[in-house]
């Protein structure tokens, strides 16, 4: 019985993870690098909403909108100042730059907002009960709906709008998109703006679900990567599936941890383990398409490893 309650908690968690994972997947698809600063963009979004709430007289919705505007701007500035200059430099140069961005963002938040734990000024609402199970409408239902709603909206945007088609074209084959008249700069700017707004939404939902700390985003970064890789990089539906899998394992892990008195911190090992298994057997993820070097499976790895250990002159 209690397990279904944990399933609800896990679903809410998966909604939050999904919001972050969509942004990671977008940047990975269009800009072709793993953005290590994405967790800290979430943190920044969460704190900007808090700042906006204070600025505009305590209205949470206005605060969130303010955060979206700021983060979209930050995303575009990052593209103009840093990542736009790192095109054609392979996947690692922008990755290192994003580590630098992560350090800067996290410590700016430390500096401005202090390391104290903070909370949004939202009213405390009674849980809604469904028989023996409960869900808090603000701390649980809103993140859940926001996460899967955003995924659906992004799916529709990518499929049916002109911008979405341009983004998919740029992700698929940049040169072809460019020669076909797609304005790639505009695509990059909108990708960054979209990913940053999604990060802000994820940060706000994470803050709503728990509380705000300067490391809140960095600690979920690994889970975001795990969700994206599980589902398949570049696939929105895949990210949703990855986040859902992580949410369900969350629901399975917590009762286990409590029963056997294992620290709940260990939960991080579960998405990590799933990610490593996926990289071994199906590097392109559950719903992704095998492209490039990611098409080789574990058999090649093992054969090469065998040769490496027992020797084969070459």
């Amino acid at each position, binding site marked *: 019985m209690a397990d279904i309650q944990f399933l609800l908690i896990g679903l809410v968690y998966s909604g939050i993870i999904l919001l972050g994972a969509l942004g990671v997947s977008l940047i990975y698809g269009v800009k072709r690098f793993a953005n290590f600063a994405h967790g800290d963009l979430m943190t920044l979004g969460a704190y900007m909403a808090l700042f906006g709430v204070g600025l505009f007289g305590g209205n949470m919705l206005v605060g969130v909108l303010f955060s979206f505007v700021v983060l979209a701007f930050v995303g575009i500035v990052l593209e103009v100042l840093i990542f736009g200059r790192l095109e054609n430099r392979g996947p690692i140069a922008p990755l290192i730059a994003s580590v630098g961005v992560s350090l800067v963002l996290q410590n700016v938040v430390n500096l401005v907002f202090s390391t104290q734990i903070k909370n949004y000024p939202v009213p405390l609402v009674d849980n809604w009960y469904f028989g023996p199970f409960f869900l808090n409408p603000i701390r649980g239902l809103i993140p859940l709906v926001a996460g899967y709603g955003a995924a659906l909206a992004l799916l529709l945007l990518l499929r049916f709008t002109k911008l979405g088609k341009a983004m998919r074209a740029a992700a698929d084959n940049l040169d072809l998109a460019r020669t076909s008249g797609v304005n790639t700069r505009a695509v990059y700017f909108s990708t960054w703006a979209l990913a940053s707004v999604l990060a802000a939404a994820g940060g706000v939902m994470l803050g709503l679900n728990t509380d705000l700390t300067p490391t809140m985003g960095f600690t979920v970064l690994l889970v975001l*990567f795990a969700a994206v*890789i599980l589902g398949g990089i570049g696939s929105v539906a895949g990210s949703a599936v990855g986040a859902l899998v992580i949410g369900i394992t969350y629901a399975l892990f917590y009762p286990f941890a409590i029963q056997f008195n294992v620290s709940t*911190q260990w939960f991080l090992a579960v998405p990590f383990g799933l*990610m*490593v298994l996926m990289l*071994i057997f199906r590097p392109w993820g559950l719903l992704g398409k095998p492209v490039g070097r990611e098409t080789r499976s574990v058999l090649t790895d093992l054969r*090469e490893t065998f040769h490496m250990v027992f020797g084969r002159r070459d």
Partner: protein
Amino acid sequence: MAFFVSFSCIYAILAIGLDLQWGYGGMFNAGVAGFWAIGAYTAAILTTPPSPPNVFGYPGHLGGFGLLFPRIGAFQTSVLVGMGGAMVLAAVFGFLIAVPTLRLREDYLAIATLGLAEIISITLQNWQPVTAGMFDIFSIPRPFDFPGQFVLTEVTFSAFVVVILAVVYFLFERMSRSPWGRVLRAVREDEDAAMVLGKNSFALKMQSFVIGCALMGLAGALFAYFQRTIDPLSDFTALDTFFIWTVVFVGGSGNHKGAIAGAFVFYFLFWFGTHAKDWLGVPAAWSTVAIYVTYIGIGVVLILLVLFRPRGLFPEPRKVSRRPRIVLGGRGGS
């Protein structure tokens, strides 16, 4: 002074390990702190006397292996065992994480090592019977211990670390000039071309990755001996990884001398920063601000280096394996 030398040398060994992976092999290891921590804990567990009984809530840790090995004069032989164990275990973890990821695009390795470091850190903080959980491990021995003679103990330890750094530097300089190092750099520059020429790029990358991890384990062991205690909460954080990254980046990727120089300069700045505020009498409230500003500065330096000096301040020197032999009457070597 001895303190400064010891710490810089430990950083320099870490930097050489990372330089071998990144500078020569082109592999981005985002989990340096994890391999460092494995080394430190392995060495600590292999060298400490039996853990003190459960007093004042201290849970105790796995230990007592230190007594199995004899003490020759002032020299603790268990220290060598600890170093060996640290290198082997760090190498094993490096191998396990490299098997699924080295074949894929470079950033998978970064993501996987980042995750591995996080999980190692969580494990060290929670695996109480072995690592004492949240508590420190105490009374880790120094290689040369002269009870009561503080200066002599510190100076001999610095000398010990300097010797190890010299040996490591010499070996790796030789390795990078060898055919092995040459092929490794070829793989870094163009993996497909190297494979077309029949080089097993996976094996080469694996070897350099595992050796780099072993070096990080060695640095971890030395760090444990140096500090005598290790703290799972404040040592070995993701920030340490980024520090080492900055060291290697500033020093110049693919340049061991640069990496060592980078380590010394970087640690000097760090050391100067922490002491300057005592000398200048800066109020305590400013010191946390100073730390955040330092981190922001490191982030900015990383970004600027990637943008404008991708090869570091001291770029990789051209290397020749051996003098090209000039064959009289024929075509020249090389």
